[in-house]
């Protein structure tokens, strides 16, 4: 064992201090990530989770990911979903009737929201989204959890508007909340290599800050297990925690591992450095301990599979995410797990908890007693 790896007693001390209410330092978060004390860290994360959210319940949302376009001028290294502008073979922009049909299917399945994201389409500016959101809201009572900081930045630039103005008007058109996608790792060294043309760390955070000031609810994500160091994972969480101290606008934090098929990044990520399920559970548990100001931690069955997705509920998560009636982006990268409401309810029950369907705001929709 090298000096950098925390001993069991070192970990126990850090965990005790965290349980006593002390804020986890960057150094100690790193020590936990380096340790192999999975169950000790997991139990502490679970204890803290029980203080913040009802320990007897696990929530989930019924919604659908709709990717209105795959045409993107950014083309991040890790992405297997996007197409270059002008790619007439694979590029698409969903026509409204198709979008509406997807929304109707979602509502028919008891869904309460759609998560709508696409690419940085060079031809789409504010007017397109304004019209799209209004036409959705005019027809359906559904929560619109849409775009991401980098898409908002793209729209603002394309339409020569300020970011606050863009968010305010999109909100007025029907945007209810903003998902935390595109965060990847909020460290510019990593972003420069992964997504050189996408929002910088500062830009991502400032869009979220503006949205949160305007009262929009948001989430934060982390996609890890590629070229970042463990210290950079901690730095990412620190940037989220700092902004959250300021705004309290993040409802949830969701972390997942890089999926490697069909993208250019895979060549830069050596097989032996890829995170294993053990690392996934440990990272999620540390995120619960480190992000002491974020109420909800979501497990990612979509990337980890349903067995580990369920198990993640013992490692600090209080929410198992969405039924994902449709999902395209992770599927493009070679990972094809699917589920249903019945199955999520079964997994939560088999875990000894009461399943609760929530909406995007975490308000209760239905309880399975």
């Amino acid at each position, binding site marked *: *064992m*090298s000096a950098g790896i925390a001993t069991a007693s070192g970990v126990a001390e850090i965990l005790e201090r965290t349980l006593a209410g002390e804020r986890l330092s960057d150094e100690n978060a790193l020590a936990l990530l380096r340790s*192999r004390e*999975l*169950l*000790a860290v*997991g*139990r502490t994360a*679970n204890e803290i989770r029980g203080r913040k959210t009802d320990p*007897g319940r696990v929530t989930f949302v019924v919604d659908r990911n709709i990717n209105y376009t795959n045409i993107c001028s950014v083309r991040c290294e890790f992405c297997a979903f996007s197409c270059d502008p002008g790619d007439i073979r694979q590029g698409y922009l969903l026509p409204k009737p198709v979008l509406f049909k997807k929304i109707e299917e979602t509502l028919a399945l008891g869904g309460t929201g759609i998560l709508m994201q696409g690419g940085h389409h060079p031809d789409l500016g504010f007017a397109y989204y304004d019209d799209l959101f209004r036409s959705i809201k005019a027809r359906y009572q559904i929560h619109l959890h849409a775009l991401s900081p980098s898409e908002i930045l793209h729209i603002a630039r394309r339409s020569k508007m300020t970011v606050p103005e863009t968010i305010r008007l999109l909100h007025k058109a029907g945007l209810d909340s903003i998902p935390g996608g595109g965060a990847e790792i909020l460290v510019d060294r990593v972003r420069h290599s992964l997504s050189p043309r996408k929002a910088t760390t500062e830009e991502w955070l400032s869009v979220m800050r503006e949205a949160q000031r305007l009262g929009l609810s948001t989430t934060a994500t982390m996609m890890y297990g590629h070229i970042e160091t463990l210290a950079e994972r901690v730095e990412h969480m620190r940037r989220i925690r700092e902004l959250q101290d300021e705004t309290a606008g993040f409802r949830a934090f969701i972390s997942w591992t890089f999926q490697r098929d069909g993208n250019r990044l895979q060549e830069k990520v050596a*097989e*032996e450095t890829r*995170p*294993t*399920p*053990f*690392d996934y*559970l440990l990272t999620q548990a540390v995120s619960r301990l480190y992000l002491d100001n974020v109420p909800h931690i979501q497990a990612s069955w979509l990337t*980890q*599979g*349903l*067995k*580990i*997705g*369920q*198990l993640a509920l*013992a*490692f600090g998560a209080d929410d198992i995410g969405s039924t994902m009636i449709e999902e395209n982006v992770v599927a493009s990268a070679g990972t094809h797990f699917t589920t249903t409401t*019945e*199955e999520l309810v*079964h*997994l939560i029950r*088999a*875990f*000894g908890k009461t399943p609760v369907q929530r909406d995007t705001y975490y308000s209760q929709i239905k309880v399975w007693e």
Partner: protein
Amino acid sequence: MSMAAQTSGAALELVREKVENGGRLDLADGVALFESDDLLALGQLAERARRLRGGGDEAYFVRNLTLNQTNVCRVKCRFCAFARSAREEGAYTFNPAELADDARRAFELEPFSELHLVNGESPQVDFDWYLETVRALRESLPGVHLKCYSASEIHHISTLSSLSYEQVLVELKEAGLGSLTGGGAEVFSPRVRKLIAPGKEPAEAWLEVNRVAHSLEIPSHCTILYGHVETVEERVEHLLRLRELQDETAGFLAFVPLAVHLENTRLDLDGGFGPTGADDLKMIATSRLLLDNVAHIKAYWISIGLPLAQVALQFGADDIQGTVGREQVFHAAGAHTETAQGAERLVRFIRAAGRVPVERDTLYNELQRWESVA
């Protein structure tokens, strides 16, 4: 804390005391463990028990090849999607020379130390077919341990040949058989057997075959097939019967819990869901705690997936089975796990779980050790 959580916490405390004092767990303890909702505390307790009983940092795997010489089977268990009738489409039977040839070619491509051979219980072959198979394998794979046939198959051979278990096993051993596999145990409860495997021999016969094998110094493995119609009590009783025999013979090398897979089978369970990850880990942890006389508990990645098998190393398991090569039985029932794993991947997963990877042979002799990376 809820009432249920308190009860569950108190039950774990009682078990913890027994574990620390080297006491034996009983039926009530086993049931309490399964009913506990504190999954991670259960895992830590199982890991503690493993360490107290002499387990170290090692986690084992074997380089092996799984073969199925025939899928023709007279038993037709309801959970099985692999078996065929002799005339059914897809039925196959390889003769001894074909099988040995196939195994040798596989060995030349990717060497292994263990051959794992299990079959349907075909009424169309005789004892000589089995003997010739083992002899042919012995000849074509001289250095390889031949782990062949479950206790159920030995019972079947005994029925086919009208020979006693002992006569069958003595001859197979002379032909080159090294150990028995652990399948066919399912759940010992007659109620459960009647529901899921009505054509199979009773538990007593399965246990007797193992008793005789152990007396002939043929080691074996033991299993439970869980997650279908069995109750928690029936699981624990199953484990206790295995423990009782192990007290008598010490012949079981390892215990292997098998999560049922339901696709393409005739087991129509409510909801159609198999065991969840939490069920799998409870099974592994509880087995470790109850089976205080079985040295190794396997997290069988074929049935629960490699991700969960890796995590199970924190829940009392010390073995993730092997490279396997060609799995057909679980995959016929819809297992979405891989059918083979490279040794490098197993080593990487074991290391990432903070354990020392050791390649073993069937008898748990150490063949290779990967020092932990600093």
